[in-house]
């Protein structure tokens, strides 16, 4: 028997950062190797809002004579822009629930989750690392949505690009925190489609993706204000469609920061709970 050569591992903070970056690169490389993403990128921003837009057109009349009431309720005359913003935010949350929420579950079903878990890397990196490419693809998705709505439907985004980006930035923690919490529950429950349908249904009805929440009955409005997506949609409509100042957005931004802290903390705690539970039950290796 010969003497073993020394281990090549050099653990430490930098090594953990490199591991995080490796997860991000892996996810991005795999994403690019499924070419259907290009089709999804161009088709989806149009398909989903289309049903709402055509319904709105039917209700308002071809000449737009029915729009007065809509303007009275919303303060906005451009119903296409109004619906476009609401549905795009809904699609963002929906895609995050499927992509981030099922990131670990997909690894589990592929069989690769265990081999990741066997490494000495900080385990939350696996969830965070797969989120970054998702954010990039979502940014592309939103850019395509803006282009398509401008060029095809003539929506005029008269607000501020920078304020819109700020709203997006402060929305990220709550939208993705919810995704992290989901990912942790999904890995334990192994079946969470019903939860996804529930959450996206709640967002669709309570957050006013195509109508102002003020139209909802009072009991429903009290639920509305508990959902961060309500604030995202409201703030984004203001920032993208109207010439507003930062001060006009502050109530929404502060609410989103609060929800962001809450959901990120909840996501992290749930992840740790799941990780401990998985070690006890062996659920990491179960398909």
């Amino acid at each position, binding site marked *: 028997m010969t003497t073993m050569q020394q*281990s090549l*591992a050099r653990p430490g903070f930098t090594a953990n950062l*490199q591991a995080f970056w*490796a997860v991000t690169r892996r996810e991005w*490389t795999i994403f690019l190797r499924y070419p259907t993403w290009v089709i999804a990128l161009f088709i989806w921003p149009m398909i989903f809002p289309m049903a709402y837009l055509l319904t709105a057109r039917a209700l308002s009349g071809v000449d737009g004579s029915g729009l007065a009431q809509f303007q009275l309720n919303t303060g906005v005359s451009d119903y296409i822009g109004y619906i476009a913003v609401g549905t795009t935010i809904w699609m963002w949350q929906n895609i995050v629930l499927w992509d981030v929420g099922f990131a670990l579950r997909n690894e589990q079903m*592929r*069989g690769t989750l*265990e081999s990741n878990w*066997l490494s000495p*890397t900080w385990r939350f990196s696996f969830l965070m690392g797969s989120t970054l490419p998702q954010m990039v693809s979502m940014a592309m998705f939103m850019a395509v949505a803006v282009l398509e709505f401008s060029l095809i439907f003539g929506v005029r985004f008269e607000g501020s690009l920078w304020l819109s980006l700020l709203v997006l930035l402060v929305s990220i923690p709550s939208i993705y925190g919810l995704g992290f919490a989901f990912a942790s529950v999904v890995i334990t429950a192994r079946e969470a489609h019903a939860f996804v349908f529930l959450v996206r249904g709640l967002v669709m009805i309570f957050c006013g993706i195509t109508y102002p929440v003020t139209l909802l009955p009072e009991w429903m409005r009290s639920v509305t204000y508990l959902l961060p997506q309500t604030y995202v949609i409201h703030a984004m409509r203001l920032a993208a469609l109207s010439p507003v100042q930062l001060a006009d957005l502050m109530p929404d931004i502060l609410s989103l920061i609060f929800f962001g802290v809450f959901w990120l903390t909840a996501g992290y705690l749930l992840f740790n709970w799941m990780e401990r539970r998985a070690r006890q039950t062996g659920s990491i290796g179960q398909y």
Partner: protein
Amino acid sequence: MSIWAIEAENLVKKFPQRAKKDGNGKKNKKFRWPRFKREPKALFTAVDGVSLQIERGEIFGLLGPNGAGKSTTIRMLCTLLEPTSGTAHVNGYDIVKQANQVRQNLGTVLAGERSIYWKLTGRENLEYFAALYHIPPAVARKRIDELIERTELKERADELVEKYSTGMRQRIAISKALLARPPILLLDEPTLGLDPQAARNLRELIVDLQKEGHTILLTTHYMEEADLLSDRIGIIDTGVIIALDTPEGLKQRIGQSEIVKLEVSGWYEKIGEQLRQLKGVENLSAHKSSADGVWEVSLHSTDSRAILPGVVETVNHNGTQLLNMNIVRPSLEDVFINLTGKALRD
């Protein structure tokens, strides 16, 4: 540093059992009043007090049938599972309290070809896992080239893993475990699903790794593999190590026993009972062979020649026919049969 590479003491793992379904197909969950609390779940014991010490530089084989507790044991040692009770140390580190240090000292191959990314190339897989094992990028590049060369994948290293054969994927999975040059390797059924040539190559690699100083814990249900590779073997059944010795030591346990191997057509259970009652027959196992209607029967006896007339008479009866008969030295499979009364593949 501990003198043992791996040391486990009375490891126990129990899993909650799912509620059984009643006759109507509904889960039989009982709730206790007044707190409306579900009754405690029944527990299934997968590993029941496993104790073992593995020396540095040793190949230790954990041999047992499917469901015996091999994989659960290995999953506890590599920190994927927490034991219900008992302790274990890997390279001196506690598997519960120092889980991260344990992972730094281990190279593990579980689930073989499914443990790598099929949409990445072989090289990309190794680059990814090198980062997860905290190997600096420049060192990793050199090490990856070395492993690709060693596992004869140089020509195909930049192709997607989905285009590889099972054997090639397994070689990438093993390379992944070797990346950080860990002192201890845990290999869970490494040759499962490989063709004979690929399995032979992999066994040669395992022997070479031992020569380089790696300690190897190998689980398998292939007795020839355990016999060929292992310095010592622990035979595990229903979560308990029922024997632990060198392959030769284990075979000697069944003393002067010889094994009478029969091939029988038209076998039925009652003949087995009659054969068991013959004077001199210590144990018997029977299973259907791959050939149509042919059963392979192993009889353990201290004096095989003395039982032959009775065996022939009993078997050639009521349409049953003896097709072939051999007297052989015991193998590990026979040791297992002798210890448990059943074959490894049962």
